[in-house]
């Protein structure tokens, strides 16, 4: 086992031990308090640090530390504009609804978001529709999170002998559980992640989730600060990095095979990924996948390759010759649809794009994303639940201040780090999702501190875990509280609710894990689609319900369903028109914007078709 693998294993074991310890401590608290309020809402006792970091860590999913870095790497400085609304996200996400939501939840005894809807609109039907939508969308959301977490586990532990041996044993003893197209190491990573998350979430409930979020929030911050420092040192500073980026032109992307003059020997040939290879005519390519020639064969399968086009880069890259008798045969190459051959494309908007002729971020999309992050984050039920759990308005105020500084320290530096990655590790454009672990190893090795790589790779792992645990618990609360306790057995005994909650949490985790055994395509698109769908469905009814006394059940129902149908319709139309996960974007604006607009129109139209809510409800919600 190399030192990187050893440090990763030690780190993982220590991290697991701490997480389980927190779950045990939380479970002790759980036994002393009212089960439902404690298990799903931590007895509404969150302090400032807990509220800020659980809000921040839940918002920062695996996408923030796997998907976002790959986008920065692929498109450059324009990602600063793409993520820019995080500058105001803590204030919007917590400040817009926080105070009112918390006050109303305390007055009405609401524990979940559907609880809030039921109490405000006196409508079990609306609460049930909300519950079903919530459970369905969150379950879909969990699958790509589990998939990303399994991939991270592979990278975190893949170098360790224990993990490799266990994956081998799994493949030998239980080949039936390994679906076609994924390796036993992926399945093992998934099992380990699922087991850990299910155990501590089931055992510890909301309080364990919040405590681990605090731990994970610190891991993320420390990791980003370390990576930023190392990246700037190793690129020679911001100015040199940006100047190098300004000279770059997008590479050519293509496919190739490795050919052998003679049939491969008994042990075959293995050409690892990320190898620099020179071709006649001064061409320099990098393999993005490993090539394998089985015994007796003369050609590998098709692998992805990237051809560097920037003269200065070509001058400094030192290709490694292939083993004697092997040659790289290019099948085809193609240029970027936008930005090809143009220096400066990585330092300006709209950024280069391999697929879209209009570039990565046309102005309409920039506007959409500015609305998307702030408003979509405000409308996430996972965030709303946290706003129902703090102890006092003073806690909310301090948490907003802390989280604003925290996000400024996390997201803008991520842009700098992964712009630096383009300079330090070029030629990974066909597999950019690997850039986070690649940078972790590169920076740690460059600093001659190889054990640091384990800590840096733990960052996206922590992000995935902090999102998954929260969402599993929300689905459980939807089933146990909103369906079982509120609709089927209002007088259910605490022991029954306790057992049902444990079973539901376990089953939800297992369902998501089984879904991730067959990794879906378009991970980032599924995350964006479900996150946007939840915001469109819940932001309108909750926000208008808190701030508009005239708003009633008819308006809330029209708002939730109308907005969601408009949002879903644009995705379905895009699927029919383009055959993929790209939605239709009228006027260049994202479906989320149209969903919100439709939601508001339906809310107003629906509200004025029916009488106001009963006076007793208005008194509870709008008067002390």
């Amino acid at each position, binding site marked *: 086992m190399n030192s990187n693998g050893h440090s990763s294993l030690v780190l993982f074991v220590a991290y697991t031990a701490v997480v389980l310890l927190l779950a045990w401590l939380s479970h002790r608290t759980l036994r002393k308090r009212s089960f439902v309020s404690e298990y799903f809402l931590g007895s509404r006792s969150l302090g400032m640090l807990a509220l800020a970091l659980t809000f921040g860590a839940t918002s920062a999913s695996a996408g923030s530390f796997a998907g976002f870095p790959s986008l920065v790497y692929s498109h450059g400085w324009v990602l600063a*504009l793409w993520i820019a*609304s995080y500058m105001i996200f803590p*204030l919007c996400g917590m400040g817009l609804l926080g105070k009112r939501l918390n006050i109303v939840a305390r007055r009405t005894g609401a524990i979940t978001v559907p609880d809030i809807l039921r109490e405000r609109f006196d409508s079990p039907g609306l609460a049930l529709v909300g519950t079903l939508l919530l459970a369905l969308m969150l379950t879909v959301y969990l699958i790509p999170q589990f998939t990303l977490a399994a991939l991270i586990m592979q990278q975190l532990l893949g170098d360790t002998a224990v993990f490799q041996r266990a994956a081998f044993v799994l493949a030998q003893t239980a080949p039936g559980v390994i679906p076609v197209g994924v390796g036993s190491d992926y399945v093992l990573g998934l099992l380990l992640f699922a087991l850990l998350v299910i155990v501590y979430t089931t055992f510890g409930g909301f309080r364990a989730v919040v405590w681990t979020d605090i731990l994970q929030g610190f891991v993320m911050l420390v990791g980003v600060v370390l990576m930023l420092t190392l990246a700037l040192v190793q690129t020679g500073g911001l100015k040199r990095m940006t100047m190098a980026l300004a000279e770059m032109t997008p590479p050519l992307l293509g496919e190739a095979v490795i050919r052998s003059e003679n049939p491969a020997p008994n042990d075959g040939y293995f050409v690892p990924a990320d190898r620099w290879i020179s071709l006649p005519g001064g061409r320099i390519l990098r393999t993005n996948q490993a090539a394998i020639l089985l015994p007796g064969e003369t050609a590998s399968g098709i692998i992805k390759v990237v051809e560097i086009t920037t003269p200065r880069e070509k001058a400094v890259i030192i290709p490694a010759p292939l083993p004697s008798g092997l040659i790289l045969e290019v099948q085809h190459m193609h240029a970027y649809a936008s930005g090809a051959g*143009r220096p400066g494309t990585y330092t300006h908007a709209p950024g280069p794009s391999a697929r879209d002729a209009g570039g990565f971020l046309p102005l309409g999309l920039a506007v959409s994303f500015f609305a998307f992050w702030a408003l979509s984050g405000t409308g996430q039920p996972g965030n709303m639940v946290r706003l129902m759990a703090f102890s006092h308005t003073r806690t909310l*105020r301090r948490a907003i201040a802390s989280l604003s*500084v925290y996000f400024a320290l996390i997201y*803008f530096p991520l842009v700098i780090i992964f712009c630096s990655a383009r300079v330090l590790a070029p030629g990974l454009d066909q597999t950019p999702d690997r850039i986070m672990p690649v940078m972790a190893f590169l920076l740690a090795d460059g600093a001659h501190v190889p054990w640091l790589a384990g800590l840096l790779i733990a960052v996206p792992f922590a992000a995935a875990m902090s999102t998954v645990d929260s969402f599993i618990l929300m689905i459980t609360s939807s089933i146990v509280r909103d369906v079982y306790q509120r609709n089927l057995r209002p007088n259910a005994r605490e022991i029954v609710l306790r057992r049902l909650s444990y079973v539901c949490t376990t089953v939800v985790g297992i369902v998501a894990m089984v879904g991730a055994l067959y990794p879906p395509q378009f991970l980032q698109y599924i995350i964006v689609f479900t996150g946007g769908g939840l915001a469109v469905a819940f932001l309108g009814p909750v926000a208008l319900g808190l*701030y508009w006394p005239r708003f009633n059940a008819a308006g809330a129902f029209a708002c939730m369903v109308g907005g969601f149908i408009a949002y879903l319709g644009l995705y379905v139309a895009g699927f029919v028109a383009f055959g993929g996960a790209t939605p239709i974007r009228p006027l260049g604006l994202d479906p989320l914007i149209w969903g919100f607009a439709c939601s508001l129109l339906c809310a107003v139209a629906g509200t004025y078709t029916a009488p106001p809510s009963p006076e007793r409800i208005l008194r509870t919600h709008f008067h002390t």
Partner: protein
Amino acid sequence: MGKESETGDAAFRRARREAAIILVAWGVCLAWTIGYSHFFGYDRSHLQLLWGMPSWVVVGVLFPWVAATAFSVWFSLRCIRDE
């Protein structure tokens, strides 16, 4: 619905005013960031650096980010009322 129910109590009105200010702050950030970036970030004719970064990123994104963070801290600690 009575007049009293429409207006709510003082705590409700304060919360609504604070929410309105937050929405305005979001709008100002949107206008600054998108407006500046539209005029200077999408122009690829030359690269100007400021603090080692493209100047449109610094003025169009980093400055408002710092300003928004400062405003968020000030507004949350000084202006949002405890209820």
